Each structure stands twice: as structure tokens, then as C-alpha cells.
């Protein structure tokens, strides 16, 4: 501060340390350094005094006093809000529960449907087997007269009855 025109950055640093000094935010070393400078530098001291006087002026600002019934009306307002919120929460819970029931019913219906489909499928299985084996069933009497499967295969290889097979007989 002895310097006639400290730069803006310097001035800002000086103000920061003086304000922190006034606010009791410095450590012992920093306090000692500032107090030494305060003794030696009248401009530095003047700046501190200005900042301190301005700070003290803030004491003239009034401290608000709430009215006597302010706390009561605040608690009442909060209670009303809390009741409203509790109602909303209850409705939300009911809605959630209803949605849960809907989901359960839907799941049961889906499961029933799937089970029905599976059972139907199982029941239809023997019929499908019968249909698949129908050509065999239709000729089961003819096949009973065959003693050996090897013999039939030999006949097929020999191609003796190709004309009958081609004509579908």
C-alpha cells in the first residue's frame, strides 16, 4: 500500500486479506504479517479502517422479528400441505396397488392362455401321429402278410413290380 497506485490485482489481494483478517479467517502467521504491516503502513491501516467502518455500518440494518402468530401459521400451513401430500401419496399408493392387481390378473390370464394352448397341443398330438401314420395303417393288413422285411427290400431292388408302383397300385 506504500506504493501510490497498486495494480487492481494487488488491491484485490490486499482487500481479500484485510477482509479475511477482519473476519478472523487467517492463521497465526498471516495475522502476524498483517499486523506488522498495519504498524508500518498508514495507507494499509486506513484501508482496513474503512473496511471495518463499513462493516460496522451493517449493524444499523434491522433484524427482522416475525409476528407472534407466524410460527403457528407456518406450522399450520405445513400441516395442511403435509395432509394434502399424504392424500396424494395415498391415492398414488392405491393407484400403484390397483396397477399391481391389474398386472397380476393379466399375468394369470396370460398363464391360463399359455397353459390352455399347451394342453390343447398335447391333446392334439396322438391325432397328428395317426394322420402321419395313416398310409401305414391303411395297408396294415397287407404288411401283416410279409414275413421278412429283407425280402421286401430285395424285391424293391429287383424292380420287379415297378409298373404297379408307378401306376399307384
Amino acid at each position, binding site marked *: 500500500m506504500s506504493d501510490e497506485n497498486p495494480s487492481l490485482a494487488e488491491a484485490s489481494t490486499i*482487500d481479500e486479506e484485510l*477482509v479475511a483478517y477482519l473476519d478472523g479467517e487467517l492463521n497465526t502467521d498471516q495475522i502476524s504479517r498483517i499486523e506488522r504491516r498495519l504498524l508500518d503502513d498508514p495507507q494499509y491501516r486506513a484501508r482496513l479502517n474503512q473496511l471495518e467502518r463499513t462493516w460496522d*455500518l451493517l449493524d444499523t*440494518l*434491522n*433484524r*427482522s422479528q416475525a409476528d407472534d402468530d407466524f410460527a403457528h401459521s407456518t406450522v399450520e400451513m405445513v400441516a395442511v400441505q403435509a395432509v394434502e401430500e399424504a392424500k396424494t401419496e395415498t391415492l398414488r399408493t392405491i393407484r400403484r396397488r390397483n396397477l399391481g392387481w391389474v398386472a397380476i390378473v393379466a399375468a394369470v390370464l396370460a398363464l391360463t392362455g399359455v397353459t390352455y394352448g399347451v394342453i390343447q397341443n398335447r391333446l392334439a398330438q396322438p391325432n397328428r401321429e395317426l394322420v402321419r401314420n395313416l398310409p401305414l395303417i391303411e395297408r396294415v393288413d397287407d404288411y401283416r402278410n410279409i414275413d421278412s422285411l429283407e425280402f421286401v427290400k430285395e424285391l424293391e431292388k429287383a424292380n420287379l413290380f415297378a409298373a404297379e408302383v408307378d401306376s399307384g397300385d
Partner: protein
Amino acid sequence: MLQVRGGDAGAFEELVLRYQHRLLTVLEHLVGNREQAEDLTQEVFLRVFRARDRYEPGAKFSTWLFTIANNVASNANRSRSRRREVGVPEGSNGSESAPLQLDQLAKAASSFMPTRALDKAEQAQMVRHAVAALSERQRLALLLAKFEGMSYQDIAETMGLSVQAIKSLLSRARVNLKEILTPYVEQGTPPDENKPPPQGGSKPPADDE
């Protein structure tokens, strides 16, 4: 607060009784309007009640309370700015504290006391207007330091800033106040209307970040 968390209505009322004046003081100087400050104070307590389950027992209650107050006041200021942007007129209440300029400060003080007697009421009026001329963040940091006696660390937590940022913010705030009030402090007169205001003219003082 732990009892409030447990659903004790009596404890909540006790909490309101204990903090209402402090909260109202900070909010009134922050928004510059008693009626709005009362609404905001109630809003803060409502939020405290709603958030009671989220309160961590280790946390300092006043820091938590003023963090909520800071959010509520910021939201209110944003809404007010939006209303101003869309052209809704502000109330003509003289206590509204849009940042005032030095010429307004001088006029306010002159008209308040025709004889220029330097009494406490005038002094308080000058200081109130000077505080209102600070930026919102400078004002809040200053009020928390002055009225709540909060440490830089607590103010930083309340405002969601670093300790270094708070140090700069408070320094700026105090220097701005000094610039505005020095003519008054040294000569006992309101600042000269013809003298250019600090911080480069009619702009509100800038924050330090």
C-alpha cells in the same frame, strides 16, 4: 431436527420458533420485501419438513437450512426476473430492492430526511440501499457472514462454492459497500450524484468469478 425426522410436530414448531427470525432477517434483506420474505420463510420451512428424511444427522442444521433458503430465494429471484422480462409490472412497494444506483441512493436519503440530519433511520436507509445494490451472491454471502456469523467454510457449503470463491466474493462485497458508503461515512453526506459510481458506472457490482 432428529425429532422432526421422527415425525414430532412439537419439535417442528420449536424449530420454526428458533429459526424464524434469523431466516426472515436474511431473506428480507435478500429480496428486499417483508411480505415476500415471509412467504419465502414459510416455503423454506415447508421444504425442510418435506426433506426431513434426507437430513443427515452429522450435518450442521443452520447450514442445511440456509442452503434451502438460498435455493428458494434464487428461484424467487429468477421468477421475478422472468416476470420482468415478459413485462409484468413490479409492485410499486418502495421496499422492493432491485439494485439501486448511487443517484437513487442519494435521492432516497435526501427525500427521506429533508433537513439532512444524520440520524439512525437515515443511516439504516443508506446501508439498506447499499446492500441492495450488491449482486445477489455478494448480498447473500455478506448477510450470512454478518447476521449468521458463518465461517467461510459454512458459507461455501451453503452457497455451493469453494472457500476461495467465498473469500473473493466477500472481499468484493465489502469493497463495493465501502465504495458506495465512503462518502457517507467520511463526510456524513450521501454520495455525490455527479460522481461516477464504483464498479464502472450504472452496472450492478460484478461477482468475482
